[in-house]
C-alpha cells in the first residue's frame, strides 16, 4: 500500500502535458497564481484596460490644458484674463474627478464581492481545496493578485491625474483641493480607498456566500465608505487659526495662504474670546457700530483655515488609516477561512 503513496513527483511532472496551452503571453504562470489569473482574467484585463484608457484620456486632457495655459503665458506668470476661458477646464477636472471617484465602488462590487462568493456559491471552492493546495495559499493568491492589479491601476490613475492637475493646482477656482474630485484622486488616497472597498467586498462575499447578494451589500458598504470618508476628510488636517488686532473695518481682514480652505471667521476680543460676526450688526449707524464694537472690546479678526500645504499630510494620514483597516479585514478573511472555507 505504502509504496503506491510515494509516487515520484518528477515522473508525473514530465508525464507529457499533451494538452499544453497554445501560447502564453508574458511570464508563464503556475499553480494557484495561474488558476487565479485564469479564473478572473476577464475582470483583470477589463480593469487594466480601463485604467489604461483613463490614463490616455487624462494625458490628452493635460495636453489640451497646457495648450490653453501656454497661450496665457504658462509656465511664467499667467495673464490676468486667463480665468475667463478656464471654465471648461474646471468643468472637465470636476467631471473626471467625479467619475474616478466611482472606481472604488465599481471595483468593490464587480471584483471584490464575487472573488470568493462566486467560488463558494458554485462549489468551485470545494474543487480547489480538495486538490493538493492549502486554502491559505489559494486565498493569498486571490487577494494578492487582485491587490496588485488594483494598486497598479490606481497608482497610475492617481499619478496621471496629479500630473494633469499640477499646472493649476494652486488655483482653487479650477479644482478645489479639499473637494473629493481632487483629494480622493491624488496621492495614495485612491489606492487606499479602492483597496479597502475591494477587500471589504471580498469579506462580505465570503460571509454571505452568494454572489448577487454580496454585490448588493458591497454596493451599500462602498457608498457608506464614501460618505463617511467625505464627512471626515477635512478632520484629517490641523486647523490653523490666524488672529489680527487691527480692528474689523475696511481691509483689516487677514490674508490666508492661496488655496487655503477657510472654515470659520469671527471677531476676537482683547481678552482673546471670539464673537460671531453678527455682533453689532444691528447698529443703526456707523458711529453706533463703532461704539458697539468698542463696548464689546473687539480688536480684530479670527480666521480658521486649512492651508493647502497640509493636503499631502492629510492624504497620507487618511490613506494609512484606510490601509490599516484593509489589513485588518484581510486578517479577518484568513482567520474566518481557517475555520470554514467551504
Amino acid at each position, binding site marked *: 500500500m505504502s509504496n503506491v503513496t510515494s509516487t515520484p513527483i518528477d515522473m508525473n*511532472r514530465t508525464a507529457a502535458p499533451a494538452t499544453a496551452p497554445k501560447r502564453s503571453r508574458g511570464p508563464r504562470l*503556475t499553480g494557484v497564481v495561474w488558476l487565479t489569473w*485564469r479564473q478572473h482574467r476577464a475582470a483583470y484585463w477589463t480593469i487594466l484596460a480601463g485604467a489604461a484608457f483613463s490614463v490616455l484620456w487624462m494625458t490628452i486632457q493635460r495636453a489640451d490644458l497646457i495648450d490653453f495655459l501656454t497661450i496665457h503665458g504658462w509656465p511664467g506668470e499667467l495673464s490676468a484674463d486667463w480665468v475667463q476661458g478656464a471654465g471648461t477646464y474646471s468643468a472637465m477636472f470636476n467631471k473626471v474627478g467625479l467619475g474616478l471617484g466611482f472606481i472604488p465602488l465599481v471595483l468593490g462590487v464587480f471584483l471584490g464581492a464575487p472573488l470568493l462568493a462566486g467560488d463558494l456559491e458554485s462549489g468551485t471552492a470545494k*474543487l480547489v*481545496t*480538495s*486538490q*493538493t493546495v*492549502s486554502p491559505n495559499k489559494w486565498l493569498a493568491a486571490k487577494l494578492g493578485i487582485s491587490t496588485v492589479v488594483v494598486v497598479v491601476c490606481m497608482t497610475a490613475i492617481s499619478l496621471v491625474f496629479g500630473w494633469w492637475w499640477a499646472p493649476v493646482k494652486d488655483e482653487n477656482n479650477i479644482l478645489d483641493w479639499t473637494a473629493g474630485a481632487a483629494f480622493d484622486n491624488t496621492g495614495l488616497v485612491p489606492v487606499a480607498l479602492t483597496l479597502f472597498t475591494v477587500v471589504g467586498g471580498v469579506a462580505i462575499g465570503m460571509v454571505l456566500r452568494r454572489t448577487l447578494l454580496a454585490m448588493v451589500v458591497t454596493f451599500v458598504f462602498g457608498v457608506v465608505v464614501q460618505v463617511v470618508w467625505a464627512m471626515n476628510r477635512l478632520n484629517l488636517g490641523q486647523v490653523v487659526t490666524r488672529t489680527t488686532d487691527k480692528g474689523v473695518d475696511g481691509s483689516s481682514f487677514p490674508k490666508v495662504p492661496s488655496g487655503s480652505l477657510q472654515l470659520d471667521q469671527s471677531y476676537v476680543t482683547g481678552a482673546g474670546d471670539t464673537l460671531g460676526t453678527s455682533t453689532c450688526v444691528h447698529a443703526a449707524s456707523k458711529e453706533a457700530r463703532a461704539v458697539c464694537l468698542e463696548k464689546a472690546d473687539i480688536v480684530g479678526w479670527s480666521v480658521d483655515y486649512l492651508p493647502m500645504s497640509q493636503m499631502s499630510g492629510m492624504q497620507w494620514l487618511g490613506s494609512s488609516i484606510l490601509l490599516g483597516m484593509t489589513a485588518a479585514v484581510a486578517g479577518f478573511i484568513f482567520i474566518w477561512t481557517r475555520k470554514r472555507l467551504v
Partner: protein
Amino acid sequence: MDLGGPPEESAIEAYGVSKRYRRGWALRECSFRLPAGRICGLVGPNGAGKTTLMAMAANLLEPTNGSLKVFGAAPESAEAGRRTAFLAQEKPLFRRFTVAETLRLGRELNPGWDQQAAESIVRAGDVPMHAKIGTLSGGQRTRVAFALAFGKRPDLLMLDEPMSDLDPLVRHELMGTLLAAAAERGTTVLMSSHMLSELGDVCDFLLVISTGGLRMAGDVDEILSAHMLLQGVDNAPGQGRNPSPEVPADLARHTVIEYRTSGRQASALIRPDGPVSDRWQSHTPHLEELLLSYLRCPDAPALISPGAQVPGRLHGSETEAA
C-alpha cells in the same frame, strides 16, 4: 471471524465523530475504521449524513465533536490532503474553463498528477479537449470531474453519489475504470450511492448510516454471513399487511432486524444467536435485501464488525465482538 486487532493500515479512522449544523445533528457519535485498499459503499437515506462524513474526511468540514484520521494523519494535514481526492455530489468545475484547462488545474495544483490517466478517461468519452465545461452535457462533466479526481492519484478516493447522472452504459464503463485503477494502485474507494444492487457488485466493505448514526460497518461477506433471512408461516395472522407485527417468541433470542408479515407469510431478517427453530426456512440474504431492511428499520441494533472497529471505542451495546 477474526477477533484480533486490526492488522492492515486504516484509510479512515473515526473516533466518535459528530457534526451539528444549525438545523440539528447531521451525524452523531460515529466510530469506525475503513481498512486501506477496500472498495467501500456508503449507504443511507437522504440526509443521513453521508456527504457530511465524506466532507469531514476531505477536510471540507470540521467535526463538532470527535476526530477523524486519514491514513493516520489529521484531515487538515498536508499529508492527508495529498493522499485523498473528493468528488463532491454536484461535481463543481469552473464553467468557463476548457476541458484542457481543467486538467491543467489538476496538474498545477497536484504534485503527483497523472496527466495520462486523466486524459485517457476524458478521451474514452469523446469529450473534446477544447470545449468549455459549461457547454458539456451532465455526463461529460461528470467524466471530467472523475478525470480530475483520478489524475490526482489519490490513495483514498471519495465519491459522493458519483453515478447519479450517468446513463447505464457510461456508469458501467466508468465503474470498470474505477475498479481497475483502484485494484492496480491499491486505492481505497469510499463511495456513497443509492444504487444498492450495483454496490453489491462493486463493494467489499460497507458503511450504513441513517438518522445521523452508524447502523452497520464491516466487510460485506462478514456482514452477510452474520445475518439470516427466514421465511415461514405467521402464528398470529393479522388483517392483511401488518406494518408492525409482533415478533414470534421463538425468534426472541436472536437479534431481529426486521419482521414482516403478509397474510400468513412471515419473513424475518435476524442476526442468529444459536440455532433457529426448523419451522423457518433460512437462507443468506442478498446485500440489497439486507440494506433495505436496515434502511427500513433505523431502530435496529447496529452491527460493527471487528474489522471496522477502532480501538478504545464503545461501538454500541450489540457489538458482535463483545
